[in-house]
């Protein structure tokens, strides 16, 4: 299964090792790991809770992976996204892809991450010393998505 949404942490090394085997003749593996940022200021984040839309989340991620596969010759793809309560320094998301060459691996990995940010139904709630609040979506994430409009195998 290339997509996993769960509370449990993941082992980056084991995931990449499995991907390298699964990819067959892959010559390149690119990966991205997102973390809960450490913020040591007074109002900094103490914890973060991720909510999602069970069913749609898996479907949306599978569609994003399928779109990346249409654009680049990817071999194996793995997306793991955690939900529930996470602490600063915890891993949130892993995207790893393999391909024959690095260009497709880098581009495919970045594409999946940019689409995940704006298309997959996850919501973050941050806890600070002052209370908790839902994180606002960032316009820079929409800008990141627009870069890919009309780009095929670029």
């Amino acid at each position, binding site marked *: 299964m290339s997509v996993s949404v769960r509370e449990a942490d993941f082992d980056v090394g084991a995931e990449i090792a499995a991907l390298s085997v699964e990819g067959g003749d892959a010559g390149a593996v690119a990966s991205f790991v997102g973390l809960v940022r450490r913020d040591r200021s007074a109002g900094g984040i103490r914890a973060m809770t991720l909510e999602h839309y069970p069913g749609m989340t898996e479907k949306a991620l599978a569609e994003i992976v399928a779109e990346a596969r249409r654009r680049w010759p990817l071999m194996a793809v793995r997306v793991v996204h955690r939900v529930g309560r996470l602490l600063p320094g915890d891993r949130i998301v892993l995207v790893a892809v393999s391909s024959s060459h690095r260009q497709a691996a880098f581009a495919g990995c970045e594409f999946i991450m940019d689409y995940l*940010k704006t298309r997959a139904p996850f919501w973050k709630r941050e806890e600070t010393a002052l209370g908790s609040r839902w994180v*606002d979506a960032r316009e820079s994430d929409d800008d990141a998505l627009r870069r890919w409009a009309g780009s095929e195998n670029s």
Partner: protein
Amino acid sequence: MTIRVLYFAGLREALGTSGEEMPLPAGVNTAGGLRDHIAARGEPWAQLARARNLRCAVNQTMVGLDAVVKRGDEVAFFPPVTGG
């Protein structure tokens, strides 16, 4: 046959529920029409009409508010996503 309406994140908290089942209201055939129908109940539901950048999904696919809604559909309303 009814429709299933789901609310997530800040919207779920503001409305005080994660969802409801209801008959498809007479005259409603789009997600935007459904939002307006629910918002017309008054507070707290009117927040649906005021929500900035309200997103929606029909049958677990993200769509615009002009998307068609029919009996048996699952319609979700939520704020812009913030995962990753």
